[in-house]
């Protein structure tokens, strides 16, 4: 009884203190997960916390569980639309890319750390998977929206490369333990079985689960639990049959997240919170598990290994895998740099420990150090790099609060709330409320210093007012224009006009007409092309919002894309002298 209470107290205070600490460190831009990892280390045996935790078996169980939850949530949040531009490059990165990083880092380990071939490759495989969740939580918390092609590729890659890295790790450990005759054959059949079963159960199970849950009548709070338990069952079944449970649960998440679903809001919110808890818990636990003093002896080697991974293996693999897709160089540089290593490598490093391999403790410590370095260097620089490489697009909304309303049989509606800043456009231009409010939007309430304002009279809004409206989701950007004051610097850098240019052209306009109106010269053979065709030819890949093409003194910027056709092109005039 005493012990139980102590464990509860200890566990909750560790999480609580860590969350508080993360609020402070977020201000200096430190990656959240790094904070939790370090907090875990501080609470651990070498830190002031002094908690001794070295139960590898328990860590492995909790780690796998957390990973499954995180992948499931990642799948739920992935949108089919992102597949158009991100799927094929991401699949290349997740399979060939992981193989290449494994091979390059593995060979380096064999040479430098004087490991055996298989042990070296094992080390390479363990650090093979990336963690985009870390990147995206960082970007989102800073209000940055990436160009879709980059964002989608990174997100899908990080979800789908975990199964590959896990497969390689498990297979290599198996090889180290049993030394079979036909290594190649064994690897191949194992690969087919793992991925085949994972795909089969993931897709099939996902559809089945949606079908089942939509036919059950239960209280709203039970739907998320049903979905979670169902997903976990899929993971368990697949893994028990020696398939890739991680692939299965990720695919199931994608299917479930993109099908019409009962209580989908509750489900998404629940899993979002759960995944967050899983991440925090996992990093805290892994921080506790490691013995920081044991990291020092391997620090030199691990640092070198991390640098090879970050500076050589990952960029090279990205460059080769993306070569057929002709991503613009800026995007390749960014994707190459953002190969952030997160919790997965540390969890995979537990596998050899459990298997009792000789080099396992050293592998674990090196991997842990690599993750630390990666979070520190890459995690801390990712925002600056995104800005430097101009991969940001203007955010589609600056909403403060939004609640989706699930009105049965109704059009989609949201309740949105704004807290007005002193320079919000609506304050300067009170008449706009009558003339410029989008047709689908209704002002519901204005709250001033805790009091509801009488709405019958004309409302003159003031700074610090809270304004609530009912609106169609498609009209949110228009509402933003009325209620959100964009900070000066931000306005300069990413206002729509600065980003997309002054005018909007139809994608179907002819180049010849553009030349006629603006006096730019173009190849006469191109004159009959539409802007859509011209830009797609120049880009040579799926177009996304924010892609650019210079045309004499003018710059064309993709503004809207529908079904792979560019429908709107921004026209950017040369800057004034």
């Amino acid at each position, binding site marked *: 009884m005493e012990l139980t209470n102590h464990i509860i107290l200890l566990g909750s205070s560790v999480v609580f203190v860590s969350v508080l600490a993360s609020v402070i460190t977020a201000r200096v831009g430190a990656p959240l997960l790094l904070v939790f990892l370090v907090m875990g280390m501080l609470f651990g045996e070498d830190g002031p916390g002094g908690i001794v935790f070295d139960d590898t078996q328990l860590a492995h169980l909790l780690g796998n569980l957390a990973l499954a939850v995180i992948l499931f949530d990642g799948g739920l949040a992935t949108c089919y639309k992102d597949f158009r531009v991100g799927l094929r490059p991401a699949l290349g990165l997740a399979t060939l890319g992981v193989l290449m990083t494994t091979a390059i880092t593995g060979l380096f380990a064999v040479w430098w750390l004087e490991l055996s071939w298989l042990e070296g490759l094992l080390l390479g495989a363990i650090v093979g998977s990336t963690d985009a969740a870390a990147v995206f939580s960082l970007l989102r918390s800073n209000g940055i929206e990436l160009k879709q092609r980059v964002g989608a590729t990174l997100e899908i890659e990080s979800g789908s490369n975990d199964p590959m890295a896990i497969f390689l790790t498990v297979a290599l450990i198996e090889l180290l333990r049993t030394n079979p005759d036909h290594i190649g054959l064994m690897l191949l059949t194992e690969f087919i079985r793992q991925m085949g079963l994972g795909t089969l159960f993931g897709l099939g199970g996902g559809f089945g689960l949606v079908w089942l849950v939509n036919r059950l009548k239960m209280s709203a709070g039970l739907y998320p639990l049903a979905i979670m338990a169902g997903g976990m069952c899929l993971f368990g079944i697949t893994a028990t049959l020696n398939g890739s449970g991680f692939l299965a649960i990720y695919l199931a998440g994608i299917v479930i997240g993109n099908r019409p679903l009962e209580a989908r809001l509750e489900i998404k919110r629940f899993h979002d919170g759960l995944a967050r808890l899983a991440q925090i818990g996992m990093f805290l636990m892994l921080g506790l598990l490691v013995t920081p003093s044991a990291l020092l002896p391997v620090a030199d080697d691990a640092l070198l290994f991390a640098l090879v991974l970050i500076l050589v293996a990952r960029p090279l693999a990205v460059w080769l895998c993306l070569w057929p897709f002709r991503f613009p160089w800026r995007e390749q540089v960014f994707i190459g740099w953002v190969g952030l290593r997160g919790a997965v490598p540390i969890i995979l490093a537990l596998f050899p420990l459990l298997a009792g391999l000789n080099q396992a403790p050293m592998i674990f410590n090196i991997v842990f150090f690599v993750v630390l370095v990666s979070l520190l260097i890459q995690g801390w620089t990712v925002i600056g790099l995104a800005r430097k490489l101009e991969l940001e697009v203007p955010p589609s909304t600056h909403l403060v609060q939004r609640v989706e309303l699930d009105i049965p049989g109704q059009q989609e509606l949201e309740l949105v709330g704004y807290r007005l800043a002193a320079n919000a456009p609506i304050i*300067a231009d009170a008449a706009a409320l009558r*003339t410029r409010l989008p047709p689908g939007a209704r002002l519901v309430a204005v709250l001033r210093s805790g009091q509801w304002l009488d709405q019958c009279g004309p409302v003159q809004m003031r700074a610090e007012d809270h304004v609530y409206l009912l609106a169609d989701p498609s009209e949110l950007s228009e509402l933003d224009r009325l209620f959100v004051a964009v900070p000066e610097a931000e306005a300069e850098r990413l206002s729509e*006009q600065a980003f997309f240019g*002054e005018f909007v052209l139809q994608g179907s*306009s002819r180049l010849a*007409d553009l030349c006629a109106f*603006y006096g730019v010269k173009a190849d006469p053979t191109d004159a009959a092309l539409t802007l859509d065709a011209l830009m797609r030819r120049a880009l040579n890949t799926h177009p996304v919002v924010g892609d650019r093409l210079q045309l004499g003194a*003018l710059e064309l910027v993709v*503004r809207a894309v529908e079904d792979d056709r560019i429908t709107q092109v921004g026209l950017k*005039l040369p800057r004034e002298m």
Partner: protein
Amino acid sequence: MLGPDLINVVRVGCGLELASKKRLIETLAGLLARDHPRLQAETVFEHLLERERLGSTGLGHGVALPHSRMKDVTTAIGAFVQTVQGVDYDASDGEAVDLAFALLVPEEANDEHLRLLAHLASLFNDPSRRVRLREATSADEILQILTAH
């Protein structure tokens, strides 16, 4: 920056009652051709309308900047209209347009004219200038706001 050759009080319309985008452009074309020796309102209108087919020249925030090249003009000329009520202009932000500046540049246009266009666009980017333009009650006042730095 906006000299008397480019815009003058004769080519400024204040507080006009216009019902549609077509009427707005027609009015601007009329102003542009008014005291010009060679320009015909009809042809100017057609040219401006032709440009709208490529995509709306609405800049957002209720401002439009229709423009075209014409061989009949030797130097860039502009006209400005403020309407009582906004007209639907297919602008990218969906806002009705109640301020419009039309610009004609010579056929042999160059980068300088593109920069002039960019300068005009940036002029209307200033929220306080837009408010003052909307509050203005005479053509003279509008001209002053337009030409002020």
